[in-house]
């Protein structure tokens, strides 16, 4: 073992249980992505044909929405830490609003697929598409509620937990984007 230049593991910032959750979520989504890519090997043309049915511009717009929402959430936390409760609330509610925008676009996405007669059982690709994005969207919805919930009191400790959750949702999406929409 090369122990030489390794820095000692130090104290994690934020709530320990949040990190347990983040790691667990990443494991689940990571496993889902790996299985999706693995299944693709059994039928590359079928997966490619399924993937072109997705609306990539909407996905790009959704990425921009979530990233901007994450920026607002981070600003909200900074405001909460400096005691600016009003500024914190505005930032968090704006972040939640963009999250709602994400969900609206996502619903539009699903509706468009449904119009084409595509559902979960249409193709293994779509099974994973709906499972992974649906699971992610459920986290977005939960995150919106959390953000609204902590905006109420604007206490740094609560805001920290909610924004960490929100950044996790963001993180999963940026990993989901290439695997599901591009590769």
């Amino acid at each position, binding site marked *: 073992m090369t122990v030489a230049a390794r820095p000692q593991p130090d104290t994690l910032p934020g709530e*320990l*249980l949040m990190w*347990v*959750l983040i790691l*667990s979520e990443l*494991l*689940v989504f990571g*496993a*889902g992505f790996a*299985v999706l890519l693995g299944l693709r090997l059994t039928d590359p043309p079928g997966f490619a044909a399924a993937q072109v049915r997705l609306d990539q511009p909407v996905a790009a717009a959704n990425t921009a929405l979530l990233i901007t929402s994450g920026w607002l959430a981070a600003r909200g936390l900074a405001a909460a830490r400096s005691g600016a409760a009003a500024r914190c609330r505005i930032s968090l509610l704006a972040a939640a609003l963009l999250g709602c925008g994400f969900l609206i676009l996502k619903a539009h996405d699903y509706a468009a697929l449904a119009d084409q007669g595509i559902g*979960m*059982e249409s193709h293994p690709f779509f*099974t*994973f598409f*709906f*499972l992974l994005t649906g699971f992610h969207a459920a986290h977005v919805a939960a995150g919106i509620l959390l953000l609204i919930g902590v905006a109420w009191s604007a206490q740094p400790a609560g805001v920290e937990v909610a924004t960490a959750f929100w950044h996790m949702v963001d993180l999963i999406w940026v990993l989901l984007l290439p695997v599901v929409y591009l590769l």
Partner: protein
Amino acid sequence: MKYQSQKIALAYFAVALALFAVQVTLGLVLGWIYVSPNFLSEVLPFNIGRMLHTNSLIVWLLLGFFGAAYYLVPEESEREIHSPKLALLQLAIFVIGTAGVVVTYLFNLFDGNFLMGNGGREFLEQPLWVKVGIVVAALIFLYNISMTVLAGKKTAITNILLLGLWGLALLFLFAFYNPSNLGLDKMYWWYVVHLWVEGTWELVMASILAFLMLKLTGVDREVIEKWLYVIVATALFSGILGTGHHYYWIGTPGYWQWIGSIFSSLEVVPFFGMMAFAFVMVWKGRRDHPNKAALLWSLGCATLAFFGAGVWGFLHTLHGVNYYTHGTQITAAHGHLAFYGAYVCLNLAIISYAMPHLRGRDPYNQVLNMAAFWLMSAGVVFMTFTLTFAGTVQTHLQRVNGEAYMDVQDQLWLFYAMRFGSGVAVVLGAVLFIYAMAFPRREVIEPGYNQPAE
């Protein structure tokens, strides 16, 4: 023992151990039926014996949990149990209900009657009146314990214990819903069965283990609570959607195969966490507690639960594997080691810890108790191996080669004979344990002295 009402636990543990004896004895009978299939076929058909084996297991484990709660809640909350009388009433309801189930099934009384007749549903086969009794008893229990905790000090251990016990009781309500569609029936059925053993019971297990570690190792409560929260978080995260691993072949949509495979693979994590927790606490602990037997059971519990529930569970949880192994002896192997490691050892650990206090003696019969641990554990582990091999052979012959079920069973005879042998060891171990608990001999242990005195 600091609080008088902790004494209630003694009655619960006594009934639990009596049922434990019934359970392993029936196990031995069933093991013999596998060797010689016509044994007692008129008096005690296999399905009835099997029902008694599993139901007595579940009831005694629950009684053990209740006893553990009545023992540890006063100590954690620093006050007496709200109402010891209600606690004894609760026990009486359980005893009457259990006896009712046994009599109803043995003599097939009131067949077809909606209230009095058997339920006919695996594990939830209690007659309706017994189910109602269970709910009433559970309500009494929750009222009693919650009142005690609410009035006293709240600790992470009691919070998690209460969360687990409340969840356990509420999920049992799904036992009353029995749709005529068999697929739906099974779907809700697992809400009770799976979400008990891989959800709420894990919370109970983690909190009792945390209590034992707190007492036996003397590690700071803060450290123990941190571990407890992490274990509980991973248990709930993986266990709830892990239910999907029961939804592979019952008519539920295909995506459950992936949800079940991915989430239930993570179910190893909390069990690994509990094993790491137990060993790290003992390693860090400064206290040299005289009750070595309780420590042995605790460490054995965490270790065997990791292997039985974690490793043996993972072995056949991926749907590609389960397609072949479903319902073979592999399942039986997993079931035996998982229940033994996680819940039997846990109960015997808290009983080993509490009994000396409850009976006002020094830890006694350490040698017998520890011998019982090794005998019983070796028996169950050997049984797990014989059943795993039997299941592997069965999977190949029956599911891959397509041979007929009974032809395959004939060829598994050797494994079943060896399994019966290991069953004998388990029963002897159980008898030894009960003896060591019930009939103390004069045996004084000096605190801090490693070897138990003879």
